[in-house]
């Protein structure tokens, strides 16, 4: 049975310890803080909160060490990220036009028998764009993997063996937030997805985002630009049925029904779940249990308390 718990942000109102106790999960805990990048090793506050030491997998530092000693692989990694960035820019050009069309059709009044299907098709076009972009992102990674076979490189293999041994003995794996792409990349580099699939996991913020099916980047009030939510990558697929939105109250205009509705319709059938401080969801492989403070964004544009045992596909 899959056992995954995802939490709201942990900085101002840490609930990790309470969540672990409520689940009855004891240590030893392995921790992935690669999203914190060069601050990866600064887990003192986390350990203080847990009341015990945690074993840091140090994925970011391991990756940095490999890149330091293997300049060819480092250059290839840089080129891979450069191509991803360029692809993202191109996707955002198309996304911007597509979302503008959706919004304009939503504003328009007129013959609903004509408007209705057009509105539906406009959203469908965004969904197809998102899916095609994700496939292209996946194929960029596949090309990189095929050319450079990261998991076969001796240094990586050695690290992976070490990490696998740590994970074998871990009672649960804790995955923190931070830089979502670097976190995902660190886990992929060491091919940990298959190992994590068999472990109990508690993840929050970016950690919660990357272990799902799709990773969605979002901010409704950026200092520049329209604030269009964008798909980023496929996640590790350790759970299904929801897309978490950490810090939703700060990052999303939850009082804007049209924006909420668009996001919900675009990502359906997955539920968009606002996860602020104190939120907790638990996945048993089939059903979600909404323990605390999680809210779902509805196609009607409302934000409602997510109920227990929501059946998801």
């Amino acid at each position, binding site marked *: 049975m899959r056992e995954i718990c995802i939490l709201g942000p942990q900085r*101002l109102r840490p609930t990790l310890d309470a969540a672990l106790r409520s689940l009855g999960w004891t240590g030893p805990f392995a921790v992935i803080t690669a999203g914190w990048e060069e601050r990866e090793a600064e887990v003192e506050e986390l350990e203080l909160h847990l009341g015990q030491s945690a074993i840091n997998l140090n994925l970011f530092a391991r990756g940095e060490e490999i890149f330091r000693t293997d300049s060819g692989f480092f250059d290839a990694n840089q080129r891979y990220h450069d191509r991803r960035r360029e692809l993202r820019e191109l996707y955002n050009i198309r996304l911007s036009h597509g979302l503008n069309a959706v919004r304009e059709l939503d504003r328009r009044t007129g013959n609903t028998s004509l408007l209705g299907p057009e509105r539906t098709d406009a959203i469908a076009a965004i969904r197809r764009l998102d899916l095609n972009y994700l496939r292209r992102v996946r194929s960029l990674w596949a090309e990189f993997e095929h050319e450079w076979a990261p998991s076969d490189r001796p240094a990586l293999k050695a690290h992976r063996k070490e990490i696998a041994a740590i994970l074998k003995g871990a009672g649960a794996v804790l995955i923190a937030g931070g830089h979502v*792409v*670097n976190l995902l990349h660190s886990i992929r580099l060491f091919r940990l997805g298959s190992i994590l699939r068999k472990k109990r996991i508690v993840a929050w*913020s*970016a950690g919660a985002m990357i272990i799902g099916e799709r990773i969605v980047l979002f901010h409704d009030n*950026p*200092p520049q630009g329209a604030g269009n939510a964008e798909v980023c990558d496929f996640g590790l697929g350790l759970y299904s049925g929801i897309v978490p939105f950490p810090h939703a109250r700060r990052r999303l205009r939850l009082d804007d029904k049209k924006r909420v509705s668009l996001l919900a319709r675009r990502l359906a059938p997955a539920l968009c779940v606002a996860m602020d401080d104190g939120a907790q969801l638990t996945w048993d492989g089939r059903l979600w249990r909404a323990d605390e403070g999680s809210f779902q964004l509805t196609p009607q544009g409302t934000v409602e308390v997510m109920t227990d045992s929501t059946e998801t596909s």
Partner: protein
Amino acid sequence: MTRAIEELLARMPVGPSDIDEFLKCHRFPIVEGSRVTFAFRGDVDRVELEHWVYGLPSSQPLTRLESTDLFYHTMDLPRNSRVEYKLLITRGDDRQLIRDPLNDLLAHDPFGANSVCYASGYETPEWVEPNPEARPGEIAHFGLWSAAFDEERPIAVYLPPRFRTTRRYLLLIVHDGFDYVQYANLKTVLDNLIHRLDIPPLIVALTNSPNRLQEYAANKSHAAFIVHDLLPFIEERFPVVRKPVGRCLMGASFGGVATLFTAWTHPGVFGRLLLQSGSFAFTDIGHHHREAAFDPVVEFINRFRRDPGRPSDKIFVSCGQYESLIYENRSLVPLLRDTGMSVRYTEARDGHNWENWRDRLREGISWVFPGPLWMIYE
């Protein structure tokens, strides 16, 4: 006339207690849509509204409410405007420029403080106020020996929260940096923008000049101070990105001139410029009509306009629509764009003052140095 003052006038004649009630029931200046009413009560002969809104008469008399000690003036002020002002009170031969005693909103600058009127729609940005959730950076002070000026100059350096020597930071150098901290809440703004992920953590060097009208007016010694004294000092002591793409020079008013002049005389040093209400006076023909301090500025801008070169790669320009320099700034923008530089230009319904510059900092700094807000989910 606005509704509030109309209602009072409709009750004429009014007595002292009516005026007491009127003053008690309203917040001043009274903002009703696009109409704003200023008021003053006192035993004086004349009251004038003194503001710095270019395009309006700078001194506008308030009308006495007949047989009372209440004076009022109503004007149009477009939505989102922010206007600083004072009242000129005349009593016999005595004239005094004072802040509005009915308005507790103040804007501070190196010369003191002015009263402030917020038109409808204006809100102080939340990110200029201290946020307990934002981790604070630190400001350290140094004395820098300047070969350019042959004397020691005080500078300060802002280090972002969770500063690490193992990381490479972008660098922002700020003309009138000490004033930006005091009058534009720069440290609070930096802390908040970093917390919000609007900008990346960066190192900020704050400079001041003991004689800015001279040193900032297209002065080669000052440009040498920035490039050959300050920049090496920072690069030796702090882990900054040592490439033009990682450096931004900024300034307001004459500080904007100093910024542009430094970059123009040292192309390829600063990949980013941030120019706020730059005093970019120029002439197409004949002599300028500004003070003598503008002479070297006009000469520089005239030369710049003839041959702008490429002082930088990315330039953010902002100006208040109520400034006398709005024409000069609007005129500069297409010229900058024609050089191939990436230019972002923004205007605000505000004047030549620190809170206007403060209010543009989020847009400006995040444009020259975008933050990781799309990627970081803590």
